[in-house]
């Protein structure tokens, strides 16, 4: 029966909700196909990016489903060892409740452990997360080998986001309707988490939630650091991407303030492993802080190396908000 779950996941078209959007069924099958004496299942509740708060919402409101999704993965992979990679702030809020839920699900010898991580952006990166659980420095590993082959303690490891496990549980109960979670933030009427169809355009999401601004605005989608920026007109057709962040900014937001908000985040959260990300984000922050007029060309030169030559997705994504903001908002003015 357990093999059916992956068929159902495939038919439902589930993709990862951590941000990368990898097909969930493929990930599960990849790991199933690897021979190993031990396999691990990890629920990633790191959620270290600004503008994202859906994982905590799901864990608070639907813990049974998340744990059920993890159990389906354990049974499918014929293993019993699962971890919650949970950031300390979340654990302090919901740890005891979650431990209780897990205890009630303690059949099949399933063993759930909690790894409480120091809140960080890089801590959500799959291989950095593995390093952290192994007691090493929280920095990404080279891929390949991928975690599906050489993961936690060298064993095949399934790492899915909280929302993905929640969706798996819905799929199992034939209740999955293609909805996703939206984290709405910014100076709007009702910021918060909403569970709505994934194929709505952003303008509709804002209208339906009573959040459509009465001022000129632009939005950032996916997360408020790595997310792409779209203007008000684009919001009429653009659909949600990545991890589900939807931040609304007034059109007259000062460019310098916005750039610095992103760069303070990136510069602080860079793990320090590779030079372009570690030093590039610092250099960008300095360049912008010292500027009176935004030196776009200078900025794009540094962004070219962070994008093209950084070690992991964190550094490779620094350019995305800035470049899309430049082309969709600044140039359109």
């Amino acid at each position, binding site marked *: 029966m357990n093999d059916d779950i992956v068929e159902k996941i495939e038919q439902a078209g589930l993709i990862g909700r951590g941000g990368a959007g990898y097909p969930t069924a493929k990930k599960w099958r990849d790991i199933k196909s690897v021979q190993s004496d031990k396999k691990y299942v990890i629920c990633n509740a790191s959620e270290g990016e600004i503008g994202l708060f859906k994982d905590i919402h799901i864990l608070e409101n639907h813990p049974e489903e998340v744990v059920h999704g993890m159990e389906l993965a354990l049974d499918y992979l014929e293993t019993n060892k699962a971890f919650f990679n949970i950031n300390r702030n979340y654990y302090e809020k919901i740890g005891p409740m979650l431990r209780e839920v897990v205890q009630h699900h303690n059949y099949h010898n399933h063993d759930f452990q909690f790894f409480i991580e120091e809140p960080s952006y890089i801590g959500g990166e799959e291989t950095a997360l593995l390093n952290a659980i192994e007691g090493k420095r929280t920095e990404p590993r080279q891929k390949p080998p991928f975690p599906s082959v050489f993961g936690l303690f060298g064993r095949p490891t399934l790492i899915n986001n909280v929302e993905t496990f929640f969706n798996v549980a819905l799929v199992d109960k034939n209740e999955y309707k293609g909805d996703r979670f939206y984290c709405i933030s910014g100076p709007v009427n009702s910021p918060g988490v909403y569970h709505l169809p994934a194929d709505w355009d952003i303008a509709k999401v804002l209208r339906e939630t009573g959040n459509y601004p009465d001022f000129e605005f632009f939005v950032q989608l996916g997360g408020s650091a790595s997310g792409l920026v779209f203007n008000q007109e684009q919001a009429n057709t653009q659909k949600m991407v990545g991890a589900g962040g939807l931040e609304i900014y007034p059109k007259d937001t000062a460019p310098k303030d916005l750039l610095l908000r992103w760069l303070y985040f990136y510069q602080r959260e860079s793990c320090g492993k590779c030079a372009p990300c570690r*030093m590039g*984000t610092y250099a960008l922050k300095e360049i912008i802080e010292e500027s009176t007029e935004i030196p776009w060309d200078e900025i794009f030169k540094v962004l070219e190396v962070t994008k093209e030559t950084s070690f992991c997705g964190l550094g490779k994504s620094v350019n995305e908000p800035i470049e899309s903001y430049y082309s969709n908002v600044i140039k359109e003015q």
Partner: protein
Amino acid sequence: MSEINFKIDNIPHSANPDESVLQIALREGVDIPHFCHHDDLPTEARCRTCLVEVEGKVVTSCNLKPAEGMDVFTDTPRVKEMRLRNMELLLAGHREDCPKCQKGLHCRVSVLMDRYGVSGIKYKSPKADAHLHKMCQAAEIDPQLCIACNKCVEICEKTGSNFLEMKGKNAQTHAAPTDRTTIDCIYCGQCTVHCPVGAVREQNEIEPVERALDDPDKIVIAQMAPSVRVSIGEEFGMPVGTDSTGQAFTAFRELGFDKVFDVNMGADITTIVEAGELIERIKENKNLPMFTSCCPAWVKHMEFYHPDLLPHLTTSRSPQIHAGAAYKTWWAKKENIDPKNIVVVSFMPCTSKKYEARHRKLNVNDLRPVDYVLTTREWAVLLKKRGINLPELEPSEPDSLGLYSGAAAIYGASGGVMESALRTAYFELTGEELEKVEFEAVRGVEGFKKAEIKIGDRVIKVAVIATAKNMNKIIAEITADKSAYDYVEVMACPGGCIGGGGQPVPTTMEIVKKRTEALYNIDSSMELRKAHLNPVVRDFFDNYVSKLSEEERKSILETHYSHKNRYE
């Protein structure tokens, strides 16, 4: 394994698919700048400067494996631009923070920056939230210059010291001592020889040496360790494994040294003292196994981690200290020189020798046997500063006290001290001279070698150890069975002093092997191959040491050990 055919800059190459494009390119003489690649350490692709272009994408070549038909380009406009930008980011602030660059001394990073047109001031570098840490008097780690390449941490872990770790995150990331107080640095300096940018470095003593050379009242003596003569050439672009002994002697004279002696002579003294003690201990079956003690990093390891085992260390002093004391006592008397005016400068492949030279317990008549210790790298900096080009020099001979045996020459290699002592112990135990002097079983760069050596009717069980990792193994073996060995040579650095922390950058095991070969060639080409046949050393023992009181004799030949705390 089948070879892969691919091209670098349109030139066909065939290579082993396990090698990286960077390794292949460097071997084929294609220049690709890189900071975090080292042949003996893991590839983590941190510095992002070894960029190449493949199929329109700019990628790092250190973790790129060649594929059949692949076209690699190392110098396209995009590669050049991104490489330059990453080097500007990586080396932001290097020149303003580097003490060598600041003083206009030779700095290999500065040479590289000039070659690639890197200013070092294009981008700002954050001031690290940490201070310079001094590893006693040996090495120091400067967080301002650290580029977080992790090499020092990796080598510290690989050798088994585990003292360094990466601390901080983002632009504040830097290597630093561990907070675990049960671990201490043993001053081996492997971090310094694996640092690509001089952020971890020896504690510089060039300036006091220059002051001594400029002081007309001082008799300044140069003495170089066995390993330095076969590695200094690398700093001047000579092939790895070149024996520059004769040119090195000339270079000391060009620098203005009054006398050119040799640590090798001191090594012959050490061999005699140590072989004598070994025989005594074997005869009395006392404090066996006996450990060598000429590696100060090994002694520090014992004094910090295993104070209970200190009686196993030979009480013999080390070669530089034996020689220094001989100059300031015997030679000074013969030459009618006030020993206070003698300045002894050792040129060593080592950082822990700087630490050893400052041990008060080794003073003779209140004078330090060795005043200053320069590493091979510091010597190269000094020579370059004075415009002395080693390869161009005519070879010359050392002065009177620089005479040495082949047994001393091999002290630089792991197993060399053991072999030298066995050559002399054989004579002492049997009264006969050894015909075949080579002990092949104790040679080679492996970190743990064992052998049973037959001398007369005795079998002596020996082991030869290199690196802290193997120190822990031998200590475990001996703790379980004290009779496992009679005599154990221990060095902290991979391959022995020849792979020492003060040697030129880069030092890899392949380079160490070539240098080692050069050392054994010096030995095999010599007539004099046993320490006890060195006439200078014989003279020292027969006409000077023998007339000393027991107390005086001990004060120049022997030492003692004590429990040391962290950072002591």
